[in-house]
């Protein structure tokens, strides 16, 4: 057996402790209330098909009056409530506390009836309509736009098409160069036959996506997490924190087939931001058309969108006021990590305040 610095007595103690923790954990789970997410007060101000546009009013409005609205465009992958996971881990609430009114696009759960939705529908249709609804609701002609991950790529496209509607653009953990050597997800995705994957019901099943993400670190995200789970079940509060994140990880909507196919073709395969020739619907995308301020935030230990993939934006944008900011943490930790609750919203508030 392996060379161990332990004794039989100690090993028995360890096994006994682990079993006790397991039983305690099961008892904790037995009395646990339902896992709730997205608890920051909000109202739906616009709906179209399965999309909902939610409004989160600012909480501390300073003497300077209401700040400009911030419209958040989340990715089609996973659910946007990661931005409002729980009261003390909520980027949205933190922004509200800093006086910023937030509007969040919730794409909903596409089903077979949505399989022909394409990027034109999402960007020139849904996002455009949400911008209209946000501007109308806030009595403004333009707004600030924050795109997260794939939503950042959508936001770059939209702001290039309609630069007059976007006063300031923030991209958060957004892939721009899809062919950096360290982008393993991109390497793997290029080997999958998308047509076959979509053949089931026209959409890409969400569980395939969960499996693909897990396949990047299979043992750490599998065996190790499961074995350490009793540590997270010591109290109802800890258990709820753990299960909220687990809920989010596994809450993966199917991707609308045509949009998925187009995104993989244009971005993962052809790397169109970098190589040019990107078209959304009947419109060519020229990132130099957006000349307003742009803040590009990425995470130092992001294994899904490596920093190099985000930094590619620097050489492409037409913004005369381009800022890059690297934050500690990984793809998700950058906005749900405990320390991130202060750093990221402060950064966004300060950057916007100096440009309003």
């Amino acid at each position, binding site marked *: 057996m392996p060379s*161990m610095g332990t004794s039989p007595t*100690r090993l028995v103690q360890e096994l006994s402790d682990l079993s006790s923790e397991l039983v305690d954990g099961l008892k904790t789970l037995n009395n646990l209330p339902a896992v709730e997410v997205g608890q920051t007060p909000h109202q739906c101000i616009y709906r179209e098909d399965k999309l909902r546009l939610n409004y989160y009013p600012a909480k501390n409005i300073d003497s300077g009056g209401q700040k400009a609205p911030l419209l958040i465009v989340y990715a089609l992958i996973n659910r946007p409530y990661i931005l409002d996971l729980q009261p003390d881990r909520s980027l949205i609430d933190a922004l509200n506390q800093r006086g910023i009114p937030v509007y969040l696009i919730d794409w909903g759960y596409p089903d077979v009836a949505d399989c022909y939705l394409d990027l034109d529908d999402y960007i020139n249709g849904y996002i455009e309509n949400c911008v209209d609804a946000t501007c109308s609701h806030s009595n403004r002609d333009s707004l600030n736009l924050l795109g997260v991950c794939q939503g950042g790529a959508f936001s770059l496209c939209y702001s290039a098409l309609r630069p007059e509607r976007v006063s300031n653009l923030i991209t958060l953990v957004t892939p721009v160069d899809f062919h950096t050597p360290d982008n393993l997800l991109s390497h793997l995705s290029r080997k999958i036959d998308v047509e076959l994957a979509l053949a089931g019901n026209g959409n890409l099943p969400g569980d395939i996506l969960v499996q693909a993400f897990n396949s990047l670190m299979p*043992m750490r995200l599998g065996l190790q997490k499961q074995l350490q789970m009793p540590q997270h079940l010591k109290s109802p509060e800890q258990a709820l924190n753990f299960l909220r994140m687990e809920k989010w990880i596994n809450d993966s909507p199917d991707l609308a087939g045509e949009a998925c196919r187009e995104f993989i073709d244009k971005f993962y395969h052809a790397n169109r931001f970098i190589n040019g020739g990107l078209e959304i619907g009947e419109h060519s995308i020229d990132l130099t058309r957006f000349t307003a301020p742009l803040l590009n935030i990425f995470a130092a230990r992001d294994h899904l969108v490596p920093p190099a993939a985000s930094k590619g934006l620097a050489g492409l944008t037409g913004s005369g006021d381009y800022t890059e900011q690297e934050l500690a943490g990984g793809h998700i930790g950058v906005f749900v990590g405990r320390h991130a609750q202060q750093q990221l919203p402060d950064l966004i508030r300060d950057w916007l305040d100096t440009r309003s």
Partner: protein
Amino acid sequence: MDSNQLEQLQQWLESQKAHWQSLLTGHESMAADWQTVLDSCRNLAQQQTGDQAELTESMAQQIKGFSQYGEQLLKSLQNPDPAFDLEQAVDALSKHLHQQANEPFFRHWQLPEAMQRPLQQLLQQMGLSPSDFSSFPFLHQSADNNQRQHRQKLLDASEALTELTQAMQHYSRLQQQINQQTKQQLVAILADPSNQPETLVELHALWIDCYEKSYQQQLSSDEYQQVYGRFCNATLNVQQQLRQYWQQEQRALGLVPYDDYDKLLKSHHQLRKQHTQSQRTIKQLQQTADQQRQASEQQLQALEQRLQQLESRPDLPADQAR
């Protein structure tokens, strides 16, 4: 879980602890039945979401496997076998952990149950149970059917399964390489007395670190990416074969198969696009019309003002000013 079930769980814990203690004294008492824990998880599942239930059961399964391995380790610590070297020891750990990892992985793919013999043999060689896989009916149902289309379906299915078998074998070989590299790394680490883990959890964590390092190396290689893609595509293709079979059956029964529904969806989407485009055009035309109306109104106002100015000029005769 009700109070009775909680009591059973507590009894299980006491019994299991007593068993481990008995191993120390050399008077081994009977181990508690892990089925009690798994039953508790299943009872708990009734009040959990599907994902939570799956996670809870995975946790119990991992701790069960971990404890069983720990028990083996305990016995070997008490009765060290000089012939059992470090490499063999790490090999045993790797086998245990690989088994723990493989089962959920293959379960995820929901491969067909009654797959052809080579695949079943392969699964058995890998220590997996073919009974975990869901049904794949057309292999049996159409076996005696001599209609051409069914024969073609069977041929297609056979080809798809052969491809899946080969892809799985190739994928399995790479997994074995990763496992081998992991073992080598772990042996190298454990050979240094200053790296000796003090707990089983530390040993487990070391193995995970070594595995992830080896896995990342493989993942970055073109060969692994090709094989991963081939395995995924072969699996998707088998699923596609199954769907196509059912489409044929649905059509024969007068039901609407997915392909027909899909055509309707496509037409619906195209109509919707046209409608959206028409709405955009109408909106643009309205805006243009509004702008032109505003411009006309402004021109009209300017003319009226000019007219009033002219009418009020005293130097013009009244009929000329008009």
